[in-house]
C-alpha cells in the first residue's frame, strides 16, 4: 500500500499557532510603519529644502529692496525718542546757581559732571559768616538733593575764604 501525504497547508498554518500569526502581522505592520516614516520623512526633507530656497529668494528681495531704508528710518525714530527723553537744560543749572548766590560770595569755578549729575563749585567769600549763609542758601534750594561743603580755608593771595561745594542735582 502506497503512502499518502494527508497533511495540508492549512494544517501547517494552524501548526504555527494564532499567537505567532498575530506576531507576524505585527512585525509586518512595524515594517510598514517604519517604511512610511522614512518615506514621509524624506518628503518633509524635500519640502523643507524647497521652502527654505523660496524663503531665501524672498528674503533677498526684502533685504536689498526699500526695507533697509524703512528699518533705518524707524531705528532713527526709536533712538530719537529715547534721546529726547534724556535731554536736559544745562542753562537751568546756571540759573539756579545765580538765584541762590548771596552777597559777598563769588564763584571761581563751576564744574558740571553729567555722569554724577553733580555740580562742583569753588567759591570765595569775604567772611566765614558769609560762607555759612551761602551753604544754608544752597541747602534751601529744592533743585539740589544734596549739598556737600568741602575744606574751608583762608586764601592769603586773595585774602578771602575759599570753600568748595558739591551740589547733586535732583
Amino acid at each position, binding site marked *: 500500500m502506497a503512502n499518502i501525504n494527508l497533511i495540508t497547508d492549512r494544517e501547517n498554518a494552524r501548526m504555527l499557532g494564532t*499567537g*505567532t500569526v498575530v*506576531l*507576524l502581522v*505585527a*512585525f509586518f505592520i*512595524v*515594517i510598514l*510603519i*517604519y517604511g512610511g*516614516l*522614512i518615506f514621509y*520623512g524624506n518628503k*518633509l*526633507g524635500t*519640502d*523643507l529644502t524647497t*521652502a*527654505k530656497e*523660496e*524663503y531665501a529668494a*524672498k*528674503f533677498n*528681495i*526684502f*533685504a*536689498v*529692496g*526699500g*526695507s*533697509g*531704508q*524703512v*528699518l*533705518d*528710518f*524707524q*531705528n*532713527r*525714530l526709536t*533712538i*530719537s*525718542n529715547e*534721546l*529726547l527723553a534724556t*535731554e*536736559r537744560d*544745562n*542753562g537751568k543749572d*546756571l540759573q539756579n546757581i545765580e538765584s541762590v548766590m548771596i552777597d559777598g560770595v563769588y*564763584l*571761581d*569755578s*563751576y*564744574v*558740571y*559732571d*553729567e*555722569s554724577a549729575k553733580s555740580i562742583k563749585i569753588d567759591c570765595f567769600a569775604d567772611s566765614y559768616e558769609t560762607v555759612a549763609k551761602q551753604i544754608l542758601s544752597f541747602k534751601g534750594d529744592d533743585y539740589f538733593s544734596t549739598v556737600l561743603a568741602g575744606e574751608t580755608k583762608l586764601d592769603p*593771595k586773595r585774602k578771602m575764604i575759599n570753600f568748595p561745594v558739591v551740589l547733586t542735582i535732583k
Partner: protein
Amino acid sequence: MKIKILLAPGLIVVIVVAIIWYVYPAYDGVDGVRDRRAKMTSQDVLTAKLDGNISSAEKLGTELRVNATQNAVVFNYIPKGKEEEKIIENLNLQATGSTLAVLEISVSELADVVAAAEVSTLSIAPPIADPVTGAVVLEAPKVVPKKLKVKYSVVGDYANIKVLIGKIQKLKRFNKFLGLDIKTLMTEGQEISDSLQANMTLEFNYLSEPKRLTDADLSNEIFSATGGFSSQIIGKIRESRNVEVNNVMPGQKRGNNPFIIAK
C-alpha cells in the same frame, strides 16, 4: 519543531528591537519626522511673516518718499555719518555769533563704544520660541548709534557763555553736555578778569545705514505696525531743536606748495 518554538519569542524580540532602534528614532529622533514637521511649521511661519513684511515695507517705503522733506528733521538730528566738519563749523559759528573766542574744538570717537561699534552697531538678543507655533523667532536687534566726543573751549563773558550754551542745546543735530567747566581767568596784574573760560565736553552721535538686513530685523515692530511711522517724534524734535546746522562750503583748491599759506 525547535524553530516553531523559537519563532514567537524571536518575533517579539525583533519587533521590540525594531521599534526601539528604527521606528522610534525615525519618528522622534534627531532629524526625525517630528523634528522635520516642527522645522516645516517654523519655516511656514517665517515665510508668512516675510510675506507680510515685504508688503508692509512697500507701503512704508512709499510713505518715506512722500514725506521726505518732513523726515529730514530726523536725519539732521541723527546724521548718517560723523560729519565732524559740520560740528567744527557750527560750534565756531555759534561762538563767534555770541562774541566768544574759541580756544579748542576737538572731535574724537567716544572710547567706550569704539570697540563695540567696530564689531557691530547691533546688540543681538538670543532667539525665543513662539509659544503657539513653536517657531524660533529672533528678537529685533537694538541699534546703538556711534558716539563722538567733542572738547570745546571758549573765552568770553558770563552772559555770552550762557547764550552759547542755550544755542548749542538747540542745535538741530543731537548733542548733550557730558561736562561743563567754567572758571575765572586772571589778568597779567593778577586781578580777576571779566572774561571766563568755559571748557565743554559734548556728545554727538551718528548712525550708519544698515548694509544688509538680517532675519532678526523681520521682528522689528515697524513691519507689523498698522499706523506707519510716528510723526509725534518728528514734532518733538522740532519743538526741542531750532538752531540750524549749516553745511560747510568747500574751500578753493590751490595746487601749490602745501607748506606755505596761499595768499
